[in-house]
């Protein structure tokens, strides 16, 4: 008898047989497998098919499936056919950062001059992985430039911060752009460097970073601001602009009066919910045994006290430190 688990488990695709038959469509289908081993072998097999597979692979590059895209880029990287360069350059603008990253790596492996300009553009990518991949590929292709700005982008991509500093002033636009990076550690690094370079050109960008959402970014912006000559007395107002979760005590009090407990919940107290539910249960009991009018006589003063308490709790809430 067949074991039960085998019925539900899809049969593993036979990669070897498909490679023998040059079944490109079948191998591409295998790229959708959730099994990493099958996936890796399928991508490798596609790469081993050589230049004749390139046309089909390039066509499938428009697939919506990320795993398929990544697998195909990997295969094209192994085939190293000039026909794949233009389509891969287009993929450098894909909306998925992992796909862009893989394309940047592949273009470096394939190694045609035509890819250099698009890779230099990719150094300005908002994603640090893509930037790193592009910088690495450019290094691999022996790219050299006299343009200081491009060089700054290159070293930023490579995460070689010392080298960025030696470039000095021409690196400032690149560092400014880095202040929009999603990774707070990268933003901190950029701010440190702007401070060390110490040029007034960094002023607007640093002013913006003083109200960054991240605490360490804000602190490092303060340290760097004085190094580029921003007036110290004006730093606090920038910090004051930071996004803050300020709770309104009036809302807390009002909520707690109407729906006892919900005001506490609004102030972030987990037990607000508990009080809310206790109130509802008690109210139902009181209604059943005392009648509505009598119940409200008892409950109203309590609600008033709870409302006032939530209001004062809201006033006393500690403010998030800068």
């Amino acid at each position, binding site marked *: 008898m067949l074991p039960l688990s085998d019925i539900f488990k899809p049969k593993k695709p036979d990669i070897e047989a498909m490679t023998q038959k040059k079944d490109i469509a079948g191998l591409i289908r295998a790229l959708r497998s959730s099994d990493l081993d099958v996936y890796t072998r399928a991508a490798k097999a596609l790469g081993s098919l050589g230049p004749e597979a390139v046309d089909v692979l390039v066509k499938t590059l428009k697939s919506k499936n990320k795993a398929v895209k990544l697998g195909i880029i990997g295969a094209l990287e192994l085939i190293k056919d000039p026909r794949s360069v233009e389509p891969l350059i287009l993929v450098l603008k894909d909306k998925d950062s992992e796909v862009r990253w893989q394309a940047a790596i592949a273009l470096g492996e394939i190694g045609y001059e035509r890819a250099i300009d698009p890779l230099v553009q990719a150094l300005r990518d908002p994603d640090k992985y893509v930037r790193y991949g592009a910088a690495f590929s450019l290094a691999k292709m022996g790219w050299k430039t006299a343009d200081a700005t491009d060089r700054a982008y290159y070293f930023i991509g490579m995460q070689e911060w010392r080298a960025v500093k030696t470039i000095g002033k021409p690196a400032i636009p690149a560092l400014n752009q880095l202040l929009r990076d999603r990774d707070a550690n990268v933003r901190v690094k950029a701010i440190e460097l702007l401070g060390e370079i110490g040029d007034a050109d960094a002023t607007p960008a640093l002013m913006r970073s003083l109200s960054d959402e991240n605490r360490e970014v804000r602190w490092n912006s303060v*340290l760097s601001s004085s190094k580029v000559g921003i007036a110290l*007395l004006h730093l*606090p*107002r920038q910090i004051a602009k930071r996004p803050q979760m300020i709770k309104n005590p009036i809302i807390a009090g009002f909520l707690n009066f109407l729906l006892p407990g919900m005001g506490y919940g609004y102030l972030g107290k*987990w037990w607000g919910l*508990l009080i809310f539910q206790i109130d*509802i249960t008690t109210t*139902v*009991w009181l209604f059943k045994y005392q009648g509505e009018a009598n119940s409200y006589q008892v409950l109203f003063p309590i609600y008033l006290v709870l409302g006032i308490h939530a209001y004062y709790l809201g006033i006393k809430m500690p*403010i998030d430190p800068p």
Partner: protein
Amino acid sequence: MPDIEAMKKAQDVKGLIHLLDHSEHDIQWRAADALGSLGEIACDPLLKILAFPKVNVRVGVIEALGDIKSPRSVDPLIQTLARDKSNEVRWVAALALGAIGDKRAIPALLQSLRDGDRYLRYGSEKSLTMLGWQPENDTDRTYAFIAMNDWESIKKLGPAAVDPLMDILKDKNPVTRGKIIDILSSIRGHEATQTCEAALMDVDSGVRWKAVIGARKCGVSNTRLPLILSRRPWTTPSPVGAATLNFFFFGLGYHYLQKWYGYLIYTSFMATMVFVQLYTDVPVPFIYAYPITWIFAIQTYFMVKKMHDL
């Protein structure tokens, strides 16, 4: 849009002070700038609202006073620096005292140089330098370096830096405490054992780990580490608390553990209880419910036990 330029020309101090509480940041700060440029006539009205309840308004007032540079504002600002509840306000006060340039502020600034807030320390150091202050001994020098975030220079000072470093461990920011532990464990020949032990019980797991790595150089024996670490404050939720909540108010225990479904379960549970009560007697539904919630309480207890951190 209020016409700030016109108000400035008309020397409308009262109107400008009102704008310090405007809902838009930009207008607040332009009003502060305008008040600062009006000079002495704005000084007394500004000093009157130095204790305004809103932090942003106080910051604006002090900025303007820093621009006016009146000697009359020095004493009130020293009071603010020493007493205000908001560290942000104290920070601006420190910066403003430096901008005004009156040497009477030096003792107060030396005090705030040793504060637990890194912004305040930084502002105090900057202002002290502006007032021509120079550190006279290694202790003051260390405090100044800490304020400037200049950790490399502190290392060079050696054992003399130990006491100030231990003092600033009171900083609420874990990044600062981590840095201090790093340095304390790189300086040789000092008695910081107690401080290192305190750092081993820090609320922040990053600081605790740095303290473990530096423990040997601090003179804390390896064998005692687990014992000391086990005394750290409890930052994870209490298993008994979560279980008790789930027993009496099924779902609220999960809510306390910040599970999204806690609220859902709790509301459904309580609604059911209320409805059943309307048709039966009050305690009836609970008699049936508690044996079931008991099982969930035990499950909750073990769920939290697994969430331990070190």
